[in-house]
């Protein structure tokens, strides 16, 4: 959470108010409005839009997890797709081999993710920055290779099919049911992460990102907190991977390419590093981007002629957008949002007063 005062003044009179996530009346009303829109959405939207929303929700769980790791704890990971794959394959393999139910496979995926996170995180104890990114990249290839090997050896060369999950007598199927399940999962993830970041652990992570040596000197367990960041982020990501497998009803290694990792990194970059709102905005943007490109191409070229070049245009445009954000707006969409906010907060003035009011 950003710790800038959001009301135009400091009105807290007790410690309890320091803990509340919603501070002002405007915030409460806009949050309620957002909630109503989100609840009404599945009853109004077409199946296609509902599928898009579900994809966004899935992506935002992964993006929040990656933001925790990269945006707050400052540990770079290019192996996010590998963790998603690990979760998806854990669910798929448990289902195929042991016919395990949903309530077993999902926690199992999270546990496998946590263990893998430990493995992914171990190099971070010795490595920083680029070298760490490379080691996670390498682990991504290893995980995906293991998945491919399993598919090939067990004869699921096209992928593993998974039936719709059941909880007791309740079967999770259909876009609308999934929307609520994924929505609850995403909101729960967000809530847990936001609170985690306000706790001592979260502050330790931010300190780590700022400067490891100083953080260590201040008495923060550098190794333990690094590993913890990897473990929590990876467990969340793997759980998202398992949900992805169930939602699609299908697991295959082709989905978890390096490009997927890059897309997740792009989400937190485009959204804005170091902000949970950024993770969500980025997830929305990156997920909807290819559909936007397709719609644009269809409008430009008419007919079906665009089909052959869609993939390439998508790649090129995606790369271009990422470069533009990195060069022109390093703070991402959140940076733009904050600027607009500040503009209205300060209006009719243009700049903040030189002496900041004491907080």
């Amino acid at each position: 959470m950003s710790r800038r005062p959001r009301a135009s003044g400091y009105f807290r009179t007790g410690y309890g108010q320091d803990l509340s996530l919603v501070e002002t009346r405007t915030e409460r009303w806009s949050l309620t409005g957002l909630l109503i829109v989100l609840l009404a959405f599945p009853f109004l939207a077409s199946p296609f839009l509902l599928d898009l929303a579900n994809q966004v929700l899935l992506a935002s769980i992964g993006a929040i997890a990656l933001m925790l790791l990269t945006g707050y704890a400052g540990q770079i990971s290019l192996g996010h797709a590998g963790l998603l794959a690990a979760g998806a394959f854990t669910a798929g393999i448990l289902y195929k081999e042991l016919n395990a139910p949903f309530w077993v496979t999902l926690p199992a995926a999270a546990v496998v993710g946590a263990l893998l996170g430990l493995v992914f995180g171990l190099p971070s104890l010795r490595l920083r920055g680029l070298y760490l990114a490379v080691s996670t990249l390498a682990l991504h290839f290893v995980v995906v290779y293991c998945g491919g090997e399993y598919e090939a050896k067990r004869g699921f060369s096209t992928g593993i099919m998974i039936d719709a999950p059941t909880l007791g007598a309740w079967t999770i199927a259909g876009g609308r049911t999934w929307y609520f399940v994924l929505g609850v999962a995403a909101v729960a993830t967000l809530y847990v992460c936001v609170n985690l970041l306000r706790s001592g652990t979260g502050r330790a992570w931010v300190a780590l990102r700022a400067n490891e040596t100083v953080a260590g000197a201040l008495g923060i367990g550098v190794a333990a907190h690094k590993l913890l960041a990897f473990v929590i982020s990876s467990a969340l990501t793997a759980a998202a991977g398992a949900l992805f497998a169930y939602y699609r009803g299908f697991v295959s290694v082709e989905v978890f390419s390096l490009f997927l990792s890059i897309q997740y990194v792009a989400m937190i970059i485009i959204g804005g590093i170091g902000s949970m709102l950024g993770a969500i905005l980025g997830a929305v943007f990156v997920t909807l981007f290819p559909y936007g490109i397709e719609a644009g191409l269809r409008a430009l070229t008419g007919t079906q002629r665009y089909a052959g070049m869609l993939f390439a245009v998508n790649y090129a445009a995606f790369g271009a957008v990422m470069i533009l954000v990195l060069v022109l707006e390093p703070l991402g969409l959140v940076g733009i949002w904050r600027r607009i906010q500040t503009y209205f907060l300060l209006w009719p003035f243009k700049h903040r007063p030189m002496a900041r009011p004491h907080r």
Partner: protein
Amino acid sequence: MQLAVNILVLAAIYALIACGYVLVYRVSRVMNLAHGELMMLGPYLLLVTAAQFQSHWLLAIAAAVSLSLLTGVLVYVLLMRKMTGEMVLAAVLTTLALGILLRGVMVLVWSAQQQYPASALSVVNFAMALPGGARISLISALLVLTTALVYGGLFAFLRCSRWGIRMRAAGQNPLLAAQRGINLHAVYALAWGLSTLTAALAGILIALDSGLDQTMAIIGLKAFPAALVGGLDSLVGALLGSLIVAAAEVLLIHYVDPLLSEVVPFLVLIAMLVVRPWGLFGTREELDRV
């Protein structure tokens, strides 16, 4: 014997690609994740120049290689120059984004189908018998020769020429180098240009040997472990690292499982990162700067 030849050829490929990673990293501390795509651009440019200079294959290759040099310089001047003051991560992500952009553009312009620059240049590739019963294709032999020449040239360039010394100085301490009147931007641009040039050479030779399609960028990425195993800022290390990675890959594919081809370099990489993260010949203090 054939295995030894295979290892040698693969090592030459990796070494030729890896020296690009080393050049850019050594001079500007940027890990260039667009290297595979820049490498792929070389043979595609060759397709264009081959159509221009149909009779002279040497002229076509020379033109393609110089275009690549120009591309590398342009990448620095137009894009990477803007990232100089930023976090290292931002620069790396920019190269990643550049790679995606390039890949999309290349498919748009030249389509995703497999192409054969060898037939466009009417170069005939044939296998030659070596003593000991092994065989090597003409292009592979050329590849090994090119790698040897490039490395020889680079060593001489970095050791003796004025610009080579400037490059080493800029890599060692940019601030001091700038104060001594070295034009850092020019040095960085030159490093990017040379790196792209060697990558294009590698790409062209691979494409002449086995055709050209989108999977080539993967080869570029697989050469990265070779650079890192040797130490990211050492050319000697890149040679040795390529040999190690290539040997591991060829032997494991031959004796264990062909599917391993994709992961072996990365397994070697992980092993190296655990044991000696700065590589065989790399500089150690890079990792521990505060």
